[in-house]
């Protein structure tokens, strides 16, 4: 089976509360994974990453991560990002507490 083509999004943690955040197509940060801007082109992704990283007074640890197409939307390509998107498995804490963000 051919490997599905992976796209990319930009993620970070919020400076004050450390919450997982995603860079949107409006050039802002959102706690909602579904609002992340998805890049098919790596060159564009790298370019926007520089812009996103410049907002250093709001964020910590900005990076690109891969997402896979999933029935018309996207899901994290790696389980680590899935945990970041959801929260820990031992308590109902983190993003899973606010269902709309999952």
């Amino acid at each position, binding site marked *: 089976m051919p490997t599905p083509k992976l796209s990319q999004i930009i993620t970070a*943690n919020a*400076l*004050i*509360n*450390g*919450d*997982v955040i995603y860079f949107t197509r409006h050039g802002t940060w959102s706690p909602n994974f579904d609002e992340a801007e998805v890049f098919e082109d790596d060159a564009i992704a790298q370019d926007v990453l520089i812009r996103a990283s410049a907002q*250093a*007074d709001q964020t*910590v*640890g900005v990076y690109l991560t891969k997402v896979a197409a999933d029935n018309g939307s996207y899901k994290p*390509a*790696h*389980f*680590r990002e899935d*945990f*970041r998107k959801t*929260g*820990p*498995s*031992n*308590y109902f*804490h*983190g*993003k899973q507490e606010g269902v709309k963000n999952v």
Partner: protein
Amino acid sequence: MYKYNDFDRSFIENRNRQFRAQVARRIDGSLTEDEFKPLRLMNGVYLQLHAYMLRVAIPYGSLNSAQLRQLAYIAERWDRGYGHFTTRQNIQYNWPKLSDIPEMLDALAAVNMHAIQTSGNTIRNVTADHFAGAAADEIADPRPYAELIRQWSTDHPEFQFLPRKFKVAVSGAHQDRAVTKAHDIGLRITERAGKIGFDVIIGGGLGRTPMIGKTIQEFLPVDDLLPYIEAVVSVWNLLGRRDNKYKARIKITVHETGIDEIKALIDQRFNEIRPSFSGIDQSLLNSIIADFQGPELRNEPVHEFHTRYDSAAVFRSWIDTNTAAHRDNTHSIVSISLKKPGQTPGDASSAQMRVIADLAEKYGYDEIRISHEQNIVLPHVHKEDLFALYCALKPYDLATANIGLISDIIACPGMDYCALATARSIPIAQQIATHFDALKIEHDIGHLQVKISGCINACGHHHVGHIGILGLDRAGVENYQITLGGDATQTATLGERAGPGFSADDLLPAIDRLITAYLSVRLSPAETFLETYRRLGQAPFKAALYPETQQNTKAA
């Protein structure tokens, strides 16, 4: 217990003031993350997957009830109402806001606690035997020496930018409960002709390249303790590799340099610096020793305990499993399990911490210890109080009788929290504990230490677990390697990898087969898993773990 003096208080207050200003400058944009990161790490602040994490030192695992109550308060006021006790006798808060951390640090300072040197390339929290000051097999209380090392190493100007982190553990008993052979420096108190000295072990460590430490000095005189340790760290500080962080720990330096050559260098350095230790350290030590005299134990005979023990089976089981021999035979050391099957190993809620603090005050002379095994210990409890203590713990899920059994699992936070992790640890621990609890065979299985790490850094001590489990990322899927035959005590041994790893779904059935094999091949219920493994080697256990391979071999 050591009491902060004016110097200690003013040092911590100054440091907290500095960090408060640093946080403010980070938030207002004056400091970049690159500038701020080393400053936050010096104060125990990490960034994890979902949030920041504050790691607070519990020096040599000792607390009083006021301190534990304050840890409970901090968890409730600024975090999510619980704390996670770690394998280095620290407590970690998983959800603090950066802007709240200065308040949390001030709240810690109010009870003589801090988060300094709980991260970064410094000498970390000095750990010790969690039965210190109470154990029947103790030669001398290791905590005064650990406290001396804590004071010497805190903000030591020569050792703030070491090649890598540096961990020291001290044990004062015949049984090594502090894993001294897996530390950068392990100190074991020994006795000769009525005097005590230290066996100094260096170059132990787990992680990527696990090594059992080597004894570099036998019976080091107490007077030479600080200069000798300073010589060790000083030699490594120059020799240690800064070009490759995976080769920077002293275990690699010892391995690459050779124990004889490094010993010669340490001796040379020791001779240089020894005259500069004028004896102030020893007078300081004497005052610290006075602080650790321990409580005046109640002199009351034991009557009712024996009746309770004989008549109440559940209580008897808890006594047999969770208490250890005290130096005074009217008292016991009580281990409070933070491992109720299904719960996160090492986690305690604020309510649980408060109950333990109250009970420590009522029944335990106000003394509490945190063990590297992620449990809480009341080191001095009169036997007449054990039943009341047990009954008071039970409603708070704190009376699980499983210390040293298969469900008393060490597990690091793993990928549920940790940014370094490659797989989860907590759900694996929960599954194993719940499974064997449901089968009601863990007392039959007997003493068995399962230790789980969610990455190669081995915070969960998997290399020295009788059964070690290492979580890895194999092509984007969680995969778990099993090691067998590890030992964390004075007979420290690194476990041997059993074979290919297991998926998260296949791991529990594999552990079940392993235990079934042990139960069928042990000589008697008295032969522990580790003893059976040492007698028979890997063969019967590998056959149980990989039955298909065995069948294929037979077919061929």
